[in-house]
């Protein structure tokens, strides 16, 4: 973080706070989506940027959060404000069970096992029609009337995302966060100085799953419905692309990436809806080859060495 970061944050918060006064509802919805994706990508980056663990299956925890929220409201009859804090716990529980196995592996195998578990989650959601509605998803998952307007849900999302980001920042700045970085840089040396590498990685995995679940639950109420696509593998690449786009070596990278990603998606799919994946794929290829540090890496210059997925 640079010295001017607090000032930038203060300006950003002020701009976001007055946005509903000047922007039409459509842009508020876009900003709401940006905030949710930003949280998802930041949670993902706790693993990728700080833990050096790249998950190819984070859609699983997003979907678990979204489906848990939808089911709690629809089947258990819980009010939304109660379902929202409970749903991420379901995602965290999933992350604990899967993560227990996943953190035993490294690099490519880590990525592949996380993908395998996400595909299992997807298939279960897809096939278990009785509970999840299968292909049709679950509809009518709306927040209470008070939060239903775009501006109200926008403020609500900002508040929840803001709190989560503060928590994530605190986690990354804590001794735990530094031990996690140590485990990333050299697992062996970290072990020598007494860090239980696997336990730290598992905790990071669970926390990352928890906050991905918050993003999923927020998105469920924003969208008013949940679908099996939430767990499908292209969704898993969303936080990865966003984090990569923004830069994985900075706390704010994924947030900047979410802004760029969503604005680009809106601009392109408004004009040529079927070309969006082409652009997305092209952007991924370009960023990897030309901009290894992401856009934040470009701005902050040499401060963060442009190292691949440290």
């Amino acid at each position, binding site marked *: 973080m640079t010295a001017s970061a607090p000032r930038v944050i203060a300006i950003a918060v002020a701009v976001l706070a007055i946005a509903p006064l000047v922007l039409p509802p459509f842009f508020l919805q876009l900003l709401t989506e940006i905030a949710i994706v930003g949280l998802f990508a930041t949670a993902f980056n706790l693993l990728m940027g700080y833990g050096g663990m790249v998950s190819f299956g984070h859609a699983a925890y997003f979907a678990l959060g979204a489906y848990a929220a939808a089911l709690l409201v629809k089947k258990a009859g819980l009010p939304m404000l109660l379902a929202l804090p409970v749903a991420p716990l379901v995602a965290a529980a999933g992350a604990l069970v899967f993560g227990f196995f996943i953190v035993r592996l490294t690099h490519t195998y880590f990525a*592949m096992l996380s993908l395998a578990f996400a595909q299992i989650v997807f298939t279960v959601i897809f096939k278990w029609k009785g509970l999840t509605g299968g292909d049709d998803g679950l509809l009518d998952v709306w927040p209470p009337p008070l939060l239903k307007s775009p501006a109200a849900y926008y403020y609500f999302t900002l508040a929840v995302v803001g709190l989560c980001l503060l928590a994530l920042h605190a986690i990354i700045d804590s001794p735990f966060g530094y031990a996690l970085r140590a485990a990333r840089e050299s697992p062996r040396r970290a072990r020598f100085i007494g860090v239980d590498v696997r336990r730290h990685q598992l905790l990071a995995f669970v926390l990352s799953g928890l906050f991905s679940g918050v993003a999923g639950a927020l998105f469920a109420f924003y969208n008013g419905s949940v679908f099996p696509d939430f767990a499908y593998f292209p969704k898993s690449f969303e936080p990865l692309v966003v984090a990569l786009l923004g830069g994985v070596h900075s706390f704010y990278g994924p947030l900047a990436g979410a802004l760029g990603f969503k604005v680009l998606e809106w601009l392109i799919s408004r004009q040529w809806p079927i070309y969006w*994946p082409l652009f997305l794929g092209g952007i991924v290829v370009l960023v990897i080859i030309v901009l290894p540090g992401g856009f934040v890496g470009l701005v902050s210059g040499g401060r963060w060495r442009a190292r691949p997925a440290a």
Partner: protein
Amino acid sequence: MQVLSGLSVGMFLFLVSVGMSLIFGVTRIVNLAHGSFYMVGAYLMVTLVELLPDRPWSFWVALLVAPLGVALLGGVIEVGLLRLIYRRDPLMQLILTFGLILVIGTLVLIVWGPDNKSVSRPDVLAGSVPVFGQPFPSYYVLVLALAPAVAVALWLIFYRTRWGMLIRAATVDREMLGALGVDVSALYTQVFVFGSWLAGLGGALAAPTVAVAIGMDGDVLTTAFVVVVIGGLGSFAGSFVSALLVGLLQSFGILVFPAISIVLLFALMAVVLIVRPWGLFGRAEE
């Protein structure tokens, strides 16, 4: 009967996954775009069969040319993109090939449109032959014959030619091979082109048996991926055994538990990854 159709599915899987495994063995890149190559092979087959005059030989010409088109595509991608990032983190390479899935998938959608296509089987193989008193489509007999032939040919290439020896050497120690004066960079390109050709052949061969459709890339990729992981990345025999295993598991799984046959597949993969992360036939790394 179920065994035979399971084996035929296994044969397509083998062609795709052995190429993927070969590419990984030499270049250390997990090519996620491999399913896309398979899809392009199938679509090229559609176009070629349409374009060529309706003669007995045109199907076979198409079957020959379509995989070559895919091989060319693979060559362009290797030289134009992958060559730039061999020294980078393997995960970046993985993400790059994911980007290629999106690019190729959209391009196929633009070129061939969203409707399903089909390729008719050549007249010679349009009927069926009796196997154990039940009719079995004769096209599958071709598949069952051709894929083992490819397997034998591959074995001969790997173990009886100099090029095969270089490939095996590269999977063991690339730096050492380079230090001994072998042009490793050219070898990478050749292997990538060859692997793409195999995927294209799988796609072209499968085209008459399936609906050629957008999205077949993802289906094949996930299954081939499971095959490669179970068999062991970079292992030739592993791909063969596990492709047959997965093919059988799929065709029986659909009979016994239709709802969860895919879960079964991924559960098997998860178990293998937990118990033997390097696969049944692979070598442990580091």
